[in-house]
């Protein structure tokens, strides 16, 4: 049992957006905690609120409610000046290294930007030494120091994004789909880099991705999101070997495995993700769930700790009975 206080505690965090058709519940009452040096994976499909959650918890977007405590203090209540200090310690790397870098700035200017904005390393010589050091850290050849983003490939651009986020020696980094725009070989290089940086500097990561094999590779624990809510949260091994929520089960079964002859009992979900605008009471997943019962349409299931460290938001976890006699999930991957 761990006695150390978690580094990050998110409590009942909410972010609603006003739209013409009503309130869009992007993040709807999410709670979790992260220990120092840990990687929490955040997975879900487009529109499930994972990126919004990543932004709200470090206050790039103002929340509609809830708390995000870092080292015990709720940064969502911080006044502006204190928040600015805080920003040095929490950073973010964005998905698209094509649109998140200013095309008119060279590599050295891009990496210098956070240093200048926060007035650290005011002396040019010292700053240049820091820039060179950061380029070494993320594996950018020093000869590229005067290159512009358009001259570089996606992998190198993403290395600039990472160097920028590391410039102020943060403790906590939100990685928002950092490898999704990259080819598999470059993706592998960046994943190895993030892993070795974490070992070297003890960073704490939130790793947001829709790619389940990537998330499994990098994460200690994984939270699965569906329509603004966490439906399951568990260590990565249990999540992949025995998913408890029907949505997690379907999601895992849908991954095409790059292995021959490994066919699984695929659960094909019917229909699409419903609208997050003014969602009705009840389980968000019930419309597509194979195990729906009456209670699911009226009562929203809480995220409960089924056993130590394994959280699931389903009324019938471990007691799923198929509603229409459709195939039941069996944990087996190999079915001939």
């Amino acid at each position: 049992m761990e006695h150390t206080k978690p580094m990050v505690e998110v409590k009942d965090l909410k972010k609603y957006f006003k739209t013409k058709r009503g309130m869009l519940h992007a993040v709807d009452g999410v709670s979790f905690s992260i220990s120092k040096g840990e990687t929490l994976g955040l997975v879900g499909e487009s529109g499930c609120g994972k990126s919004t959650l990543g932004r709200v918890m470090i206050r790039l977007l103002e929340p509609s409610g809830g708390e995000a405590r870092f080292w015990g203090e709720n940064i969502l209540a911080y006044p502006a000046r204190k928040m600015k200090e805080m920003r040095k310690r929490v950073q973010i790397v964005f998905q698209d290294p094509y649109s998140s870098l200013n095309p008119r700035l060279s590599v050295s200017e891009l990496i210098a930007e956070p240093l200048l904005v926060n007035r650290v390393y005011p002396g040019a010589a010292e700053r240049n030494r820091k820039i060179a050091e950061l380029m070494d850290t993320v594996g950018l050849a020093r000869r590229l120091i005067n290159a512009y983003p358009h001259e570089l490939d996606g992998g190198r651009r993403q290395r600039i994004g990472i160097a920028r986020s590391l410039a102020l020696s943060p403790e906590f980094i939100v990685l928002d789909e950092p490898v999704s725009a990259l080819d598999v070989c470059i993706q592998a290089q960046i994943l190895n880099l993030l892993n070795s940086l974490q070992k070297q500097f003890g960073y704490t990561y939130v790793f947001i991705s829709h790619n389940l094999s990537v998330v499994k590779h990098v994460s200690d624990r994984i939270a699965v999101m569906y329509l603004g809510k966490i439906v399951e949260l568990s260590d990565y091994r249990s999540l992949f070997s025995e998913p408890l929520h029907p949505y997690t089960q379907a999601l895992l079964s849908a991954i095409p495995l790059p292995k021959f002859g490994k066919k699984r009992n695929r659960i094909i979900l019917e229909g699409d993700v419903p609208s997050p605008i003014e969602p009705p009471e009840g389980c968000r997943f019930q419309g597509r769930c194979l195990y729906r019962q009456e209670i699911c349409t009226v009562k929203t299931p809480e995220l409960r700790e089924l056993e130590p460290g394994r959280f699931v938001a389903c009324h019938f976890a471990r007691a799923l009975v198929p509603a229409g006699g459709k195939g039941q999930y069996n944990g087996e991957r190999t079915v001939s």
Partner: protein
Amino acid sequence: MEEKRLLLDIQDLSIRYETEGGAVHAVEHLNLSLAPGENLGFVGETGAGKTTSALGIMRLVPSPPGRIVSGKILFEGEDLLNKSEEEMRAIRGGKIAMIFQDPMTSLNPVITVDKQIAEMVLLHNDMTKEQAEERAVEMLELVGIKRERARDYPHQFSGGMKQRVVIAIALACNPVLLIADEPTTALDVTIQAQVLELMQELRRKINTSLIMITHDLGIVAEMCDKVAIMYAGKVVEYAATEALFNHPGHPYTEGLFNSIPDLDSDEEELKVIRGLMPDPTNLPGGCAFHPRCPYAVEECSRTAPSMAEIEPGHFVACPVRARPYLDRGKQGVE
């Protein structure tokens, strides 16, 4: 007459783009064949030449700057490169259909989906407008879209549903060959599963051959009988899916597999391919992969490798890796 007539037989196809920075050798000496009803996976990273090859088959390579420099594309025994534009127009969408990656941009936003399908049907069949529209509704039902939604516009559908409409258009004229260029890359994984399932089911129903262009080896394992791995404009390995997945021959193929995080085991570090894709206007001499290859020997920088058959039907363009197999083969004969 061979017992199995080839549906598609590409011989020595080379396609170039003439750019200000020099000629880009997008496709170099491509040889591929496809029997009726067969499924071929076409795998490679961005810029490997997969899409250009597909556009070449359809004779849709934008020209200029693109140019088909040499080769033959025999389709049902006839060379597509000798066809007139008018003949090609009858083939495209008729006997050969293509599905593009992004369903959001391949549909016309101001025309209802039934009309878009009917347009294709009318173009290739002698039918009245009413018959074509009825056929459109049938096609929509085939891909799982209800009759009531036929008069809807593309923006009223979700991404997965739009891709279904695109598939309905592609299959409306019963093509014998379907080329799908990353058909599920823009979709979420549960929706991707729906679309792949649908494509499998439809293929069984109408017995179309399929060329599946993808970067996802998982999709290949599920959908394809044969695989061609492309690197810098060339096919470096070509084999039955089972052989390629169980014992990949080319160092690049091996590197691709090692780059994918494994769901069934824990590994700290991924074994990456060192370096980057080469500049397409300035490819390394000899084997284009040799600067990144852990097995490279001196000869690799001098001689461009040719395809060697290491096992029946398993071709590898790497003399270093092929040698042990070929030596073993010789001993077997002696």
